[in-house]
């Protein structure tokens, strides 16, 4: 019985509610930014930065990764970031397609 109780460790509920509040606030900020007359590239960078912050909050707190042993994060995350980074090699080709389009 004691062993069962000793294994149950719950993080404070308030932490998750604060993270939820931040996620809602950042969503509101994204929608607000979408209606500011900014250049598409600037908008893209700002929105993706906010999305990466939101994703990090979800992974760290809701998916509990910051409370797990570090080895789990170090096994999963660098591989994911590397593969997604490698996908960006395609973009110069999309610019080539646009530039070579007959006018």
């Amino acid at each position: 019985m004691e062993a069962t109780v000793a294994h149950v460790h719950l993080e404070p509920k308030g932490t998750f509610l604060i993270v939820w509040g931040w996620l809602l606030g950042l969503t509101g900020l994204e929608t607000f930014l979408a209606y500011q007359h900014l250049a598409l590239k600037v908008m893209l960078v700002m929105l993706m930065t906010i999305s990466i912050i939101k994703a990090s909050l979800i992974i760290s707190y809701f998916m509990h990764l910051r409370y797990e042993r570090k080895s789990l994060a170090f096994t999963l995350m660098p591989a994911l970031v590397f593969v997604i980074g490698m996908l960006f090699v395609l973009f110069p080709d999309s610019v080539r397609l646009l530039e070579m389009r007959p006018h």
Partner: protein
Amino acid sequence: MAGPDTIASFHDTQSAESAWSGGVSPYAVVPKKLGMWLFIVSDAITFACLIIAYSYIRMASPSWPRPFLIWPSIINATVMTVVLLTSSITVVMAVRASKVSQRGTTALWLMATMLGGILFDVLHIHEWLSLIGEGVRLFTNPWGPPLFGGSFFILTGLHMLHVTIGVVYLGVIAWGFKRLKFTADDVEISGLYWHFVDLVWMFLFPLVYLLSAKTI
């Protein structure tokens, strides 16, 4: 020679090594949780490929439609985002309740999460029907670049499929956990999947909707 500090660090090294030498879980998680994490990483790569393909097509097109009016489309998509984020906090509550073996409470929180998922699907299908009503198809649309419809329907459709599968998955877990067929680990693992579905939407919402919002 060997002081207390040296001995302590020696023991630390030993325990760190033994964690990697088999017989001990190096990640300190149950195997099926590691399995779900590996699935999530591979599924994240699937979505990343589709998002990159969408961005590739959009960059290669001289113009791209921005058909989404603030009302109803952007407001609708913002409400969908809030619904999905809220369903993530209800699943967090389900996981907490499951860890202290509150089986009824866990099932209730999971059902609240399922309701969130169903509401998300209903709002999204409504959006789809309105676009289809405007003449958007996989390879044609009234505004020009033919792949607008294809990229929109495939990206959001795959995500909607994940939400729908998640609703069924959570339903099975809620049913089984209440009847002692599943453990708190199973609830936590289903929660991981649900948070991942939420996470993917955090990228689809700005990329598909906000960057195609009609601002004038």
